[in-house]
């Protein structure tokens, strides 16, 4: 009923916008990363034509990303922080999503509203709130030192000094990352748990499975897509995070790969190296994303078969 050209015509403004302001900028990053640096002004000289590309800076950064290089420690730390934060999100988030999907009945609407609320509170405000709480004399700082939890953390090696939470503590950075990103993890997980047909579980129990076995062999596999989706949703932005460590720590001992990029653009005069790190980070994330899509594709095939 509609003319054939109508729908492509509708799509054109948006597609053109994204081509020019989303795709083309990546080419700008490539041009700068494979360009040169003005020896006197230290400004980047981008190379737009692939014939003129200078792979030196990207090679330099890649080289520094290997063991013994300047960025090796930062790279390892980033992976460690992201992995531990993801682990924390799963440990806290799975029971919460599971409870709301399976057991909450009358309180479900209320719990969902409270679950979504952090989405609409600025990330920066949620970090600012913890600065207030963890600063010397803050509610959380006083509670932790009164209950000697702070001493305990110190003796476990999680804090470098007791009662110092905001001065370059890895523990605080990971805690803040979990706090900041966990809402984005719980929601897709909740959606996938909520979709599980209860008759599968009843079948498992009728056939004699214990509640734990029913969970392990029915609920957990069926929530795999939600688990992976939530993980991807928080892992990708975490790899690009620089503001969380800057806010709750600010010390170079807790800097992540994002801080390194931020430093080359906002602190130092060498965008070329910053662009090279950005390209390598993007390539790394594309591989992660590809693995995720491959897993989803495989598990959807298994479900059909």
């Amino acid at each position: 009923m509609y003319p054939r050209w109508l729908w492509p015509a509708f799509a054109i403004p948006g597609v053109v916008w994204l081509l020019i302001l989303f795709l083309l900028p990546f080419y700008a990053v490539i041009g700068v990363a494979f360009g040169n640096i003005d020896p006197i002004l230290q400004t980047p000289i981008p190379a737009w034509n692939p014939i003129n590309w200078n792979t030196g800076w990207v090679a330099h950064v890649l080289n520094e990303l290997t063991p013994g290089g300047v960025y090796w420690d930062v790279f390892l730390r980033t992976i460690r922080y992201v992995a531990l934060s993801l682990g924390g999100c799963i440990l806290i988030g799975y029971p919460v999503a599971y409870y709301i999907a399976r057991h909450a009945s009358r309180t479900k609407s209320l719990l969902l509203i409270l679950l979504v609320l952090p989405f609409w509170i600025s990330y920066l405000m949620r970090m600012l709130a913890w600065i207030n709480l963890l600063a010397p004399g803050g509610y959380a700082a006083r509670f932790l030192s009164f209950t000697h939890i702070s001493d305990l953390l110190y003796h476990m090696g999680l804090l470098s000094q007791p009662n110092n939470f905001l001065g370059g503590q890895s523990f605080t950075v990971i805690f803040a990352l979990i706090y900041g990103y966990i809402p984005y993890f719980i929601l897709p997980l909740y959606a996938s748990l909520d979709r599980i047909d209860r008759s599968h579980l009843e079948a498992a129990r009728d056939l004699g499975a214990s509640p734990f076995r029913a969970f392990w062999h029915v609920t957990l596999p069926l929530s795999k897509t939600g688990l992976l989706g939530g993980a991807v949703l928080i892992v990708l932005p975490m790899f690009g995070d620089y503001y969380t460590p800057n806010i709750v720590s600010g010390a170079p001992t807790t800097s992540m790969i994002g801080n390194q990029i931020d430093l080359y653009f906002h602190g130092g005069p060498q965008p070329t190296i910053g662009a090279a790190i950005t390209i390598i980070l993007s390539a790394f994330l594309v591989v992660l994303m590809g693995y995720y899509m491959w897993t989803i594709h495989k598990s959807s095939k298994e479900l059909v078969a």
Partner: protein
Amino acid sequence: MSQAVATPTATKEFTLWQRVYGWITNPWGKPRFLVLITWGYIVWSIAPVLIAIQFSFNNSRSLTVWHGFTTKWYFSDPVDSIWHNASYRGALNQSLKLAALDVLIATPIGVMLALGLARWRGRGSGASNFLMLFPLVTPEIVMGVSLLLLFTQLFTFVNTGTLAQVLGHVTFSISYVVVIVRGRLFSIGRSYEEAAADLGASPSAALRLVLMPLLLPAIVASAAIVFAISIDDFVISQWLSNGANSTTVPMLIYDATRATPLPSTDGLATVIMTITLITVVAGVAVFRMFTRGEGGRGSAVDDVAGFGM
């Protein structure tokens, strides 16, 4: 008498551990440890923000010790109140300006793109779909770096500052509009338009008189969401700013956390949070009002939950 003796022997069969274990797992009701974890999580996720709001009313410069209630950080303090401090007002202005422009530009483009992508079957449609999804999973720092380099190296006629910030905000907002509107398009289906066409409506009449009114709730809701994500955005605003006159509220909060935050910093965050929450609640309310009686499952909550993603 014999009963009084029998009762303790009956309970004696359970050790303390078994009783605690039984209470926690609660086999005939909701598992209590899940209840505890869930409500513990909810309190943990929201209480810090409530405390930050509390300290925006603190009658002292301290953010850690409570000295009584005042609203001076909002109105009366001549130097540091939100009302009197020029940089606070400037940041509020900039945030609202960016959010408003973002809504005005990203919503129409996104709605059209959603329509196009949902119904266009031909060469390029698959790739366009893919392109639309990418901004949703790209880390903001990568987008920030690439847009900054675009504006400083390639499109040097665009200076960093408000224009660059608006272009950046629209770029990450379009995909959210598409996702929300396309969801609504699929749930409407094509039968209404086909009925209109059978009854003699021209294509443009079917679009204007049938499809647009049906899409309106999703358009309003997506405009509210775009407003909210734009006003809360930090990374893109920071990378594309050119200093003091393009500082937004989240940027100001960021700078304050790295120096010495004041109760008025909490106050500014509270103001922005209130604006965001009112916008989102209004958007969802409009969505519910228009879609009421459609017999769909779910509640307003499911809609918000859907928007969160």
